[in-house]
């Protein structure tokens, strides 16, 4: 356990000890600077920081989640990314990957929390069930809520990994039986970085951590607490199929000619136009592909409440309160039809009710007509 060491290694030292060359290290820093959207001068800054900064103590908590965030993380496309964070960042506590277990593991966490009070980064994967006093998720005899509050108390900052921790994801979809709650609704007195996605892109996760390490502060966040470097653009706006959208060439069904030609998936429910993420530029699995490139519309997994945002394979969202099949256009057309019908009814009724008044005016008009010539 790294916490037992007197002076922890810097990132650079641990990378070199791990058998990587300095060249690999420089490639990695260049790589990260590019992802974070910095200019080339930042490469030196990042590499300098990684050479001099002692490894950052990290506690990585797992609550209501599927571990897909961790899975995504260890598949980042540069080996050092995984190594630096998982082997070499002093990841002092993570249920899935640490060697220790049981009381030993809990003791390690407690020791880190005490030794690095106010310094460690708390990474949270998963939402916290608030229903029934939180008994739906217990770790080491404590509820997730208790665990979170204890760990958050001494944390420098919190990273909410994935949609579970940043918006609740599938377990908070209606009717949310366990009252699954994202982290920022529970902890309000700590800086929180939300890194949504189901899972988030591995490079995005690495980029966030490298930023914290290299610059000693949180990356610039948008209004919703997400790092701007990765969540400032819609998937739609960086999509390689965008020219088909602008040309008005759309897939109508998944097996039609347009689908084979790779046209825009807008009409089969792609959520790219309403989803903020870097999938279009960074892509997945070493930049191999991403959902749209594989012929499936974007799911919108990094958006809040994406499970409740209507049907996956339809363009129009369902209108709440109007049944399953009622979309905005159907409801609107019926409403407009009813109003037009009411106007027609009013017109007919007025010819009867206002008969006298109207006739009077017509008659007086006819009288005047007679006077003319």
């Amino acid at each position, binding site marked *: 356990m790294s916490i037992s060491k007197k002076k922890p290694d810097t990132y650079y030292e641990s990378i070199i000890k791990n058998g990587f060359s300095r060249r690999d290290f420089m490639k990695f820093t260049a790589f990260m600077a590019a992802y974070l959207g910095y200019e080339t001068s930042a490469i030196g800054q990042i590499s300098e920081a990684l050479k001099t900064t002692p490894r950052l103590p990290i506690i990585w908590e797992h609550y209501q989640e599927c571990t897909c965030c961790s899975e995504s993380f260890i598949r980042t496309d540069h080996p050092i990314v995984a190594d630096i964070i998982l082997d070499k960042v002093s990841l002092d506590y993570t249920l899935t990957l640490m060697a220790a277990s049981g009381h030993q593991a809990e003791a390690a966490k407690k020791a880190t929390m005490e030794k690095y009070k106010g310094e460690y980064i708390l990474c949270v994967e998963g939402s916290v069930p608030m229903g029934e006093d939180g008994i739906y998720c217990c770790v080491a005899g404590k509820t997730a809520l208790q665990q979170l509050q204890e760990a958050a108390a001494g944390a420098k900052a919190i990273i909410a990994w994935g949609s579970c921790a940043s918006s609740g994801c599938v377990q908070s979809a209606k009717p949310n039986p366990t009252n699954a709650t994202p982290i920022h609704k529970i902890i309000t007195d700590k800086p929180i970085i939300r890194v949504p996605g189901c899972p988030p892109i591995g490079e995005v996760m690495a980029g966030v951590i490298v930023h914290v390490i290299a610059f000693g502060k949180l990356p610039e966040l948008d209004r919703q607490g997400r790092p701007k470097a990765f969540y400032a653009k819609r998937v739609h706006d960086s999509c390689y199929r965008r020219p088909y959208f602008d040309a*008005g*060439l*759309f897939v109508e069904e998944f097996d039609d000619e347009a689908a084979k030609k790779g046209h825009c998936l807008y009409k089969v429910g792609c959520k790219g136009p309403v989803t903020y993420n870097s999938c279009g530029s960074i892509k997945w699995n070493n930049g191999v592909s991403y959902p749209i490139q594989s012929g499936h519309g974007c799911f919108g997994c990094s958006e809040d409440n994406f499970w409740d945002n209507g049907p996956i394979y339809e363009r*129009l969202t369902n209108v709440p309160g109007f049944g399953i099949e009622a979309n905005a256009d159907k409801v609107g057309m019926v409403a407009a039809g009813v109003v037009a019908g009411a106007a027609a009814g009013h017109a007919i009724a007025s010819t009867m*009710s206002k008969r006298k008044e109207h006739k009077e005016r017509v008659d007086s008009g006819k009288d005047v007509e007679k006077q003319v010539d």
Partner: protein
Amino acid sequence: MTTISHEYKRVFVWEVPVRIFHWVNFLALFALIATGILIGNPPALMSGAEATNQYWFGINRFIHFAAGYIFTLNLVYRVFWSFMGNKYANWKVFFPFSKKRRKNMGHVLKSDILLQNPKNSDFSNISVGHNAVASFSYLVFFILVLAQIATGFALYADNATWWFPKLFAWVVPLFGGDALVRLVHHILMWFVIIFSIVHVYLVFYHDWLEGRGEVSSMFGGFKFVRKERVDTKKDLND
């Protein structure tokens, strides 16, 4: 000779800026709704064509955004004019706060919406500019389109470089995401359509029944009002 003498006086009601506003507003709304429906559900017009030679959906969206700007600036211009124009264009017209306006509202609801025939006709009930129900409906319409402007520019803000659309960037976090903002924008469009149906119908209704130039007033600016009404000197807006 007729037994009833209907003497009318010609009143200048809608000034040129009001009429310009009205027709720019109509054209912008027409463009916004037409292009908006296409954006919401694009038809498969060009499915056989090559993308290289096509840009119709991009142009469609451009028209939507341009019309949105025109619509917004036009509305700003109308708000400005509500402080500069005549009493029929004044901002006070749109708020049913005075007793006279509420009385007129009751009258219009009873006589024109529920089609009752009041026994004693009161000349002060004849409205010269907007009647109280109509002007209130424009206040509701104003709030409705403010919401459209806010949600529309909020969706547009992320790709914009100008500060104006970015003023509305806070709307997206308020709703939690683009998806809901988009849905609200879409649903409110139908309210605008419904407003337009009712508005056009009631203009025709008043023109048919009263014969005072309701329809043509938005072209020429004049309405015709009974002499007795002018003599009562009890205007809604006084």
